[in-house]
C-alpha cells in the first residue's frame, strides 16, 4: 500500500528558537492578540510503499532521525495522512 506520511521537525525543548520568537513578536502589530509559544519548524510530506501502517511510520521515523532532523537540536515525529492502493 502507499501510505502518505507527514514528518514534523521541531526544535527540542530548551533550544533557542529565534525564528519562532520573531514571528511571535510580530503578531500583535498585525492585530493578532493572545498568541504565545510560537515555534518554527519544518514539515515534510512523502509517500511510502509499505506492507503496513506501522512499517510506513517506522521507516519514516528512521529516515527522519537519520536525515531530516539533527537529533542534537531537533525532534522528529511521523504521522499518517492517508493511504491508497499501490
Amino acid at each position: 500500500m502507499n501510505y502518505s506520511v507527514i514528518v514534523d521537525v521541531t526544535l527540542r525543548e530548551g533550544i533557542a528558537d529565534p525564528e519562532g520568537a520573531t514571528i511571535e513578536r510580530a503578531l500583535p502589530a498585525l492585530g493578532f492578540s493572545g498568541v504565545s509559544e510560537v515555534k518554527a519548524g519544518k514539515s515534510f510530506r512523502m509517500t511510502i510503499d509499505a506492507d503496513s501502517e506501522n512499517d510506513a511510520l517506522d521507516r519514516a521515523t528512521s529516515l527522519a532521525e537519520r536525515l531530516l532532523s539533527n537529533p542534537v537540536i531537533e525532534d522528529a515525529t511521523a504521522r499518517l495522512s492517508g493511504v491508497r492502493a499501490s
Partner: protein
Amino acid sequence: MTRVGVVVFPGSNCEYDAALAVNALGATSELVWHSTTDLSSYDAIILPGGFAHGDYLRPGALARFSPVMDSVGRFASDGGAVLGICNGFQVLTEAGLLPGALQKNRGLTFLCQPTTLTVSSLASVLTSRARLGQELVIPINHFSGSYTCDDATYQELVANDRIVLTYKDNPNGSRGDIAGIANERGNVVGLMPHPERAMSTLLGSDDGRVLLESFLSASMASLTP
C-alpha cells in the same frame, strides 16, 4: 612538504581561498572532489566554507553523506589533522566528528564582519603555535553560526580544554562565546571564522596565519611515528 587536500562539495565556495592560504605558507594543496574516497596522499584535510549541497535541509546535512566523508572520518580517527572552516565546521558537526550543532544566528541576520577572537586553548592542531589569551582579528561570514550543545557536552568541552577560540564580542549567540572547538584528541577542529581570509594586512588582517601555520606544522608532526 605538507600536502593538504581541500574538499570541494557542490556549492563549496572558499576552496580556492583555503588552498591559496596554505600554499602561501609553503604547503601544497589539491582540490578534492566530494566523490573521492582515497585521501591517502594527503597529510591534512580542510573542509572549506560555502554552501555544500545548497545547504538544503540544514547546513551540512546532505554533505555528511557525500562519499568523501567516510574517508574523512577514517583520516581523523587515524590521527590526521582535519580542519572545518565555516560550512566545513557545520559539516563536521552533522557528521558527528565534532559535538553540538550550528543554529541560525541569534539576530536572524547574515553576518559578514571582522571579529576579535581569543585563543582559549592550545591543545589543538589549529592553535598549538598561538599564545593562550592571544587576540586575533578574523572575519566571519555566516547565517547559521550560533554554536549550540547540551549542558553535558558543554561541560565536557570546558573540562577537556576543547574550546579553542571564543568571540570577544559574541556576534551570533553562540553558547559560551564559542567560535571554534576541537575533538578529544585535538586533531579535528571546526571554527566559524575564516582564517584563510586573514592572511595579509593589506586585506585587513594577517592573524589567520598563526592558526594555519599551527595546522600545517601539526599535520607534519602527525606523520612522525
